[in-house]
Each structure stands twice: as structure tokens, then as C-alpha cells.
């Protein structure tokens, strides 16, 4: 597995179900390639930051009141 293949596989793994085991070939490559190790570390850091990047803004207190007023009609077909 070369660097390009390892990085593509790494990104694929990041987009997949996290419970799945990583391809041992990726781990082997990263263990022996400093550049890919740094790439993996950068992706891990980015993954954590994106996951933690929760919006600070929330809906206004009037949101539901306004919505319910607008929902009053029309009713869905039954």
C-alpha cells in the first residue's frame, strides 16, 4: 500500500461505521511512514474539532408559538 492508497483508505474509514476494524494495511503503512502518520494525526484533530463544533445560536423563545399559530391551518388531509 502506497501513501496515496493509505490516505484514501483512511478517509474512507473515517466516513464509514466507526465500529469497523481498520484495515491492518493502513495501520502498517502509517507505522512506517512519517508523512502519513502526520496526515492521520491532522485528520484525527480535524475530526474532533468538527464533531465539537456545535453551533452557539439557538432558536428564539417565540419559535414554537409562531409555528403553532401558522400550523393552525391548513390541516393535513386525513
Amino acid at each position, binding site marked *: 500500500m502506497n501513501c496515496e492508497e493509505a490516505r484514501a483508505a483512511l478517509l474512507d474509514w473515517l*466516513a464509514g461505521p466507526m465500529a469497523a476494524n481498520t484495515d491492518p494495511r493502513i495501520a502498517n503503512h502509517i507505522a512506517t511512514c512519517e508523512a502519513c502518520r502526520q496526515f492521520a494525526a491532522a485528520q484525527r484533530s480535524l475530526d474532533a474539532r468538527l464533531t465539537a463544533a456545535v*453551533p452557539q445560536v439557538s432558536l428564539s423563545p417565540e419559535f414554537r408559538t409562531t409555528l403553532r399559530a401558522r400550523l393552525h391551518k391548513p390541516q*393535513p388531509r386525513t
Partner: protein
Amino acid sequence: MFFATSSGAREYQECGMDDDVQDLLRRRRYADAFEQLLNRYEAKVFRLALALLRDAARAEDATQETFLKLWRALPDYDARASPGTWLYTIARNTCLSAFRSDSYRKTLPLDAISEPAAPARPLLADMEVERCLERLPEVQRTVITLFYLQERRVDEVARMLGIPEGTVKSHLHRARLALSETIKETR
């Protein structure tokens, strides 16, 4: 594990989450189903709208529109996607319509339509991530928002956007690489 990530819970969290809503819909208990979806998804829909429209007031309007459309469409729900996924699709389409609306165009030069206006105040706690997200093309920003900020799986994002899973992965990869580069540049 050499590469543990913080998004690992994604795989499990949505499994069966909307089964109760599907059951209510099967029994035509639309008001109850609507309340469940509102309680479960109003904040998430708002966050998606915020990420796409970059303006809290417009995002709240789009969230209102989304739930109004949902209410009117509930009798037509066909169970092809989970109610949550279906709702996200409505939300995304509503946001894109708002984004392209005449009223929004009036506030932006035509060549800026693909780049949302910068928010008046930070929308995310991590301002650097926010600045970098703003520089992504709309589709990549949407995919990143759905995958990370909304914690949806690739297959769900694909259904919401009506594109193949491989295309979602490709957008996700490109976005991640672009974000890594942008963050590196700002250091």
C-alpha cells in the same frame, strides 16, 4: 486502535430512533407524529439551516417553513426513508429555496450567490472551523454539516441529498482535505 475518532457513536444512534414516529404515521396519528419530530429535530433542522444560510433569522424562518411543509406532507409519507431523513430532505430543499430566493439575492451581488454572507456574529464555538467551513463550496459544506454537526451516516446523507454514497464520500474527502489545508495555512 491507532486512529480513534470522536464520531464513533454515529453508527448506532439513529437505529430505530424514528420507529415510534413511523408507527404513529401508520395509524394516521399525524399530530402526535409531528410533535415527536418537532421535539426530536427542531434544533437539528435549525443547525442545518444555520450552516446553509449563515444567518440566524433566516435559519429560523427556514426551520418554520420546514415544519410547516412537514405538517402538510405527513399524510403523504411513504416510508421509503426514515421520517428523520425525510425531514432533513425537506429542510435542505427549503434552505436552498430560501438561499436562492429573490429577497436574498437583493442583499447579495449575483456573483456571491454561491458564497453565503458572513454571519454577523460567530455561529460556531470554534471560529477557525467556522471560517474554514465558509470557504467550502455549498455541497461540501452541506455534507460536512450533515455528517459532523448533525451526526448523520453517509448513506443517510446520500438519501437526503439524492446523490450516490460514493459521491457523498468524495465530497467528504475533498472537504476534509480542504479544511486541513486551510487550517494549516492559517497557522
